[in-house]
């Protein structure tokens, strides 16, 4: 047999094996995704009956679910994730109520309205389980979405998939930063910065709030604390803007925590700070239900 012919056979065999292996491996790994204890795996597996759902970006992780449960006796599920914008949160929320018993309360950390939606790329891991996430992904990354249809392993290529593996047998609801601010970060001069929300995020917030009101689910729009020298200069105006556009009050705690020991950095509370913050919310009645459980 000539060298060219042998080479062609080898290349064809290679393509066939790559594609077959890609499909088989992806099928197995998608089963793994659904069985994990990671938050979105739980969401799409269904059967959850949380009373309180939390949505937000990395700052939403300050709503430490075990502490909410200890304080209120309500079952809590935090669905926040780094860089989750309200547009993505909207898709997650709609998917949640489709697959699970609707919650009694949804808490949304509204400064996530300044996030551009980088998480869309990561959430491709769940695109096969959610037409909404698939549509968001295809809208933002059209070429990668095509690649994902050709190679089934590609959508599993994400940080979320690593999280899926990490939380295979353990809950992810105790996920919160535990370190305290490094001394150099603590002593940084005051940062004069402004919250600049994206319009489509504000509209998504408004849609979410409208839907939740319509279904009789309580909504809490909250601004979690910022580090002492990092409170945005326009935070009060931002809260007013969101409240006006969304037609719901915003609970503003941007400057409520002053002890640097309560922060992991100038943007994120650590576990200790999270507990302090949740006690404030509890004290102010944020977790109090004003309506009976919704019926569906």
């Amino acid at each position, binding site marked *: 047999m000539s*060298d*060219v012919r*042998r*080479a062609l056979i*080898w290349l064809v*065999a*290679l393509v066939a*094996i*790559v594609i077959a*292996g*890609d499909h088989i*491996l992806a099928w197995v*790994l998608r089963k793994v995704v659904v069985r994990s204890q990671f938050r979105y795996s739980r969401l799409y597996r269904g059967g959850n009956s949380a009373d309180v759902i939390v949505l937000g970006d990395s700052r939403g992780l300050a709503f430490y679910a075990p502490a909410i449960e200890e304080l209120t006796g309500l079952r809590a599920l935090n669905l926040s994730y780094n860089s989750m914008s309200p547009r993505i949160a909207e898709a997650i929320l709609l998917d949640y109520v489709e697959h699970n018993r609707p919650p009694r309360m949804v808490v949304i950390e509204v400064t996530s309205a300044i996030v551009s939606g980088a998480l869309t790329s990561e959430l491709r891991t769940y695109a096969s389980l959610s037409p909404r996430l698939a549509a968001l992904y295809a809208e933002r990354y059209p070429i*990668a979405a095509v690649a994902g249809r050709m*190679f089934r*392993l*590609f959508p*599993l*290529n994400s*940080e979320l*998939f*690593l*999280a899926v*593996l*990490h939380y295979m047998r353990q809950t992810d609801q105790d996920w919160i*930063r*535990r*370190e*305290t601010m*490094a*001394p*150099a*970060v603590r002593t940084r001069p005051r940062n004069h910065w402004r919250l600049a929300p994206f319009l489509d995020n504000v509209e998504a917030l408004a849609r979410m709030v409208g839907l939740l009101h319509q279904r009789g689910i309580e909504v809490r729009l909250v601004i979690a604390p910022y580090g002492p020298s990092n409170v945005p200069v326009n935070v009060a105006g931002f809260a007013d803007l969101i409240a006006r556009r969304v037609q719901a009050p915003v609970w503003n705690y941007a400057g409520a925590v002053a002890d640097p020991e309560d922060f992991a*950095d100038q943007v994120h509370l650590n576990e200790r700070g999270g507990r302090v913050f949740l006690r404030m919310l509890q004290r102010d009645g944020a977790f109090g239900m004003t309506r009976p459980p919704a019926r569906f």
Partner: protein
Amino acid sequence: MLFNSLPFLAFLPIFMTFYWATSGRARLWVMLVGSLFFYAWWDWRFLSLLLFSSLVDYSLGILLEDERHEAMRRRLIVISVAINLGLLGFFKYFNFFVQSAADVSSALGLHPTYNALKIVLPVGISFYVFKTMSYTIDVYRRTQKAERDLLRFTTFVVFFPELVAGPIVRASRLLPQLARDHPFSYERMVSGLTLVASGYVRKVAIADSIAPLVDIRFAHPEAHNAWSLLIGVYLYAFQIYCDFSGYSNIAIGLARVLGFDFGINFDRPYFSRSFGEFWTRWHISLSSWLRDYLYISLGGNRGGTWRTFRNLMVTMLLGGLWHGASWTFVAWGGLHGLYLVTQRLIGPAYQRVIRALRVPTVVSNAFLMLLVFHLTCFGWVFFRAHSFSNAFDVLSGIAAMRGASLADVDNKWRILKCAVLIAVMLGFEAASFLRDRQRAPEFSPALRLAFVAACAWVVLIFGTFSGNNFIYFQF
């Protein structure tokens, strides 16, 4: 054009089709035009520089060979070296030297005014200048015949797999291969693609996945605890290794598919038991270039112990400077020079102690490997840092053991992923060591098929597709 980009994946099959459809001089034209197109994709304006460099050394090579008078030949080689180093000096080091001179003047109380020029560094200039310079030096030394075919010589200079980031394939190796046609070979294709696949895994799955983890730690060392910074340094050691050895593997593999033999550029360097060994395993084409054209030209080890030490230090300092126009690179080179000198000073005593204590060879080797690796990592801090203060921030953060808790390290999952991939790669390297020792036969095409398929799956599921540049492009 980047090897890890869509344009390259489109370019390659078109190039291959024309390459295999032609022979003789027509094939050389295909290689030349394809290579120039590959380079022009980045910036077509610098093609003139590339062609100028080729033309100058082509002409000087012929003059050097034809000239009988030694004094004239010396003048010609000085002209060649001056032009090559002049190009490199202007494009790469002009602002660096001007800034350094201004800094020294300021320190002396003078305050000169100067204007830095906005100079774009032509991609690959450090590589092709070294390649052409070694050619003329070899012709001057009469160890290489001058190439009289301009088409062949220009193709030698611009051949795309090694043009922008090496390996630095010398004329003595490549020109004879360009003088004949290479028929298509099934074995070469399979072994070449195997190398290419391993290169993509190293670059796309390992180096590019590590890059953001390292970037954030060196950008804000004050915001990371000791463990986090230490992990960042270890990760950088593997980022630069996988990035550059990945590029080299792709380049060498592509050349092998086309019928060319470039040799190897990395040979499992982190298994080295001494710095002498490290430099025979790391960026082999550069280290052998520095040895042959700098270290030996300075006298090598012929002038006694202290002259040898001086030559080692000069070679490594200049080798450091070759990597970039910054004193941190010079410091990195200087550190390696010190390592080499120290090794020569205490190496024999260490061997005597090991023999006296009857330490098993395997234990001694493992200790030496770990020692060399960690000292190399120490050097990488200066190589990666953007300034000395940045390097000292990283090192002091580690030394102070500030907030030393492994639990507080960010991006654990990504770090874990990288660690697993690195462990698998090192496992393969260790296995290849044993195979080499046992002189095991080459892997069969079926096994290579499975390996390439596995590489494709690894890239699909663990690759980072952000089109990151190769680190060595900046050099």
